[in-house]
């Protein structure tokens, strides 16, 4: 669009020219202000002995007492440990799958078949977590199809939906089912930017299909892989709230408590608002630091990162 230089043009003149644009942006700015920025200030209750009756203004400031209590609470550290383990397991078992899917789909020659498969694997991304958990329950839960079939053959069935030991694999399987297909898109886009002449030249030089994969395809995907890996690491404390809150009562807090559900339970269900806000603030601040560090690291290794340092 137009990019006339604002320099030299008087502010008042620009304001007179651009005020309709400001009016257009206003509703969004107001909404973000009220529902995003303003409640962010509400995190001060993390430093208060907050009482809903006294409100933020009337509640007593207690410094870091909520935090020191939190750091001595085994349940809090278990939530941290669960969150980090789930991130780690997802990095190993989830992260490579979209890459593999993209390579597989890219090798399918028929465009029609490719479209059909794409249509099928993107679909679950648009299902709600409630729906995904419901479907898993019907397939592998205690009253589900798998248990039903196993029982029909005279064995005793296990309920995979309520076993704490395997919960981490269950949630990873659910994430794969829901989002692995969707995650493939960005790799497909990257694959389409690789110059086909490179493959031809390599083949002429005698490189077989595996060497071409190793020396052309994977280097072509490298920037995207590094970017997504860094994004995921920056988001290490976020594993999704809905998926866990839905299954926490069936599996128990031992395995299914992650940081977000811990905040929800301590703050809203126990009613300890200040303490819950402290846990939420801890997650938010560490998460922000992780994102910034991960992005700095991306720049260091010569990748673009999430935002550029313009």
């Amino acid at each position, binding site marked *: 669009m137009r990019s006339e230089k604002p320099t030299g043009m008087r502010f008042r003149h620009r304001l007179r020219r651009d005020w309709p*644009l*400001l009016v257009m942006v206003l509703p969004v700015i107001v909404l973000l202000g*009220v529902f995003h920025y303003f409640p962010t200030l509400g995190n001060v209750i993390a430093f208060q002995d907050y009482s809903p009756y006294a409100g*933020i203004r009337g509640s007593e400031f207690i410094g870091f007492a909520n935090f020191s209590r939190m750091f001595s609470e085994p349940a809090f550290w278990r939530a941290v440990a669960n969150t980090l383990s789930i991130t780690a397991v997802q990095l190993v078992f989830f992260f490579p799958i979209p890459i593999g899917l993209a390579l597989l789909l890219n090798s399918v020659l028929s465009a029609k078949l490719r479209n059909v*498969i794409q249509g099928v694997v993107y679909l679950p991304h648009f299902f*709600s*977590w*409630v729906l995904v958990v419901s*479907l898993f329950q*019907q397939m592998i839960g205690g009253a589900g199809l798998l248990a039903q079939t196993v029982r029909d053959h005279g064995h005793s069935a296990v309920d995979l939906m309520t076993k704490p030991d395997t919960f981490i694999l269950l949630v990873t399987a659910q994430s794969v089912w829901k989002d692995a297909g969707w995650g493939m898109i960005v790799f497909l886009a990257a694959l389409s930017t690789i110059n086909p002449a490179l493959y031809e030249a390599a083949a002429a030089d005698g490189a077989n299909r595996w060497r071409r994969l190793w020396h052309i395809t994977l280097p072509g995907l490298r920037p995207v892989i590094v970017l997504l890996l860094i994004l995921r690491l920056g988001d290490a404390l976020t594993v999704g709230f809905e998926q866990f809150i839905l299954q926490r009562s069936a599996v128990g807090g031992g395995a299914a408590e992650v940081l977000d559900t811990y905040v929800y339970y301590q703050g809203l269900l126990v009613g300890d608002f200040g303490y819950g806000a402290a846990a939420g603030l801890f997650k938010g601040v560490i998460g922000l630091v992780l994102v910034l560090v991960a992005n700095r690291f991306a720049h260091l290794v010569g990748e673009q990162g999430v935002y550029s340092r313009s």
Partner: protein
Amino acid sequence: MTARAVWEEEPTAIGRLSKPVVLTLIALAVAFPLYVVVVTSLSSTEAVTRAGGLVVVPRELTVAAYVQLLSGGVVTRALFISVMITAVGTAFSLGITVLAAYGLSRPGSVFHRPLLFVVLLTFLFGPGIIPSYLLVNSLGLIDHYASLILPTAISAFNLIVMRSFFMGIPGELIDSARIDGAGEFAILRRIVLPLSKAVVAVVGLFYAVGYWNAFFNALLYINDNNKWPLQMVLRTYIVQQQPLPTGAGGIATGTGLGLQPAPGLAIKMAIVVIAIVPVLLVYPFIQRHFTKGVIIGAVKG
């Protein structure tokens, strides 16, 4: 690419055999659970009993479960609420997103950089669950339908996608309209929007699916179960397996409607199907507009 390039070697036997198998398995992993749920929702008591639960082989199909669910009561009400929230929420979100995306699409306009920064900064942190709850509570929006729309009405991602698309529209078009005396609102309506139907459709569908699937806001802000959207009903009666309420205000009984009552499992699966169907209906439209250009290109830009 529809044919193998001449320089490429013949596919190996293993590759030729395993690829269709793997692709079929992947497609089945998505389709099979949906199929079982649909078949069970259409099954009679006898069919469910014979199968010992979920029904894989369809037999004696009946729509009794759907008739019972949709003739008043919990699910009918929740369905109506979800449809209304989705319609109103999508119109609202899309409207203010289009306006803001256009308002931010001109570098060099007054306050352009700080306003864009205010939007982009929301990617980096959220207010947190507890402060959000306290805010909605202090605004008196607990148990109010507005709490299902306002707090999450803006997706900065959708806004940026749309803005990038608007920025790709040739500036000459807009300049010539301005010379003809058109104001910004007229330019948006007569020039920009007609050129942006695809991106408006995709962003609208993303918002719609988001509202339809939303569960978190209702969990936090809606205590009155008469105001529950469908996802909360799904959670309560399917995921948490609470007994289905029948009779007045609950789910209509089959005998009251003069038909063979559907088994409890078919009713449950019918609730699941009702939650899926709208997504399936809009999905082909999302897919059609979802060319790589719309989202990926926009995100990179």
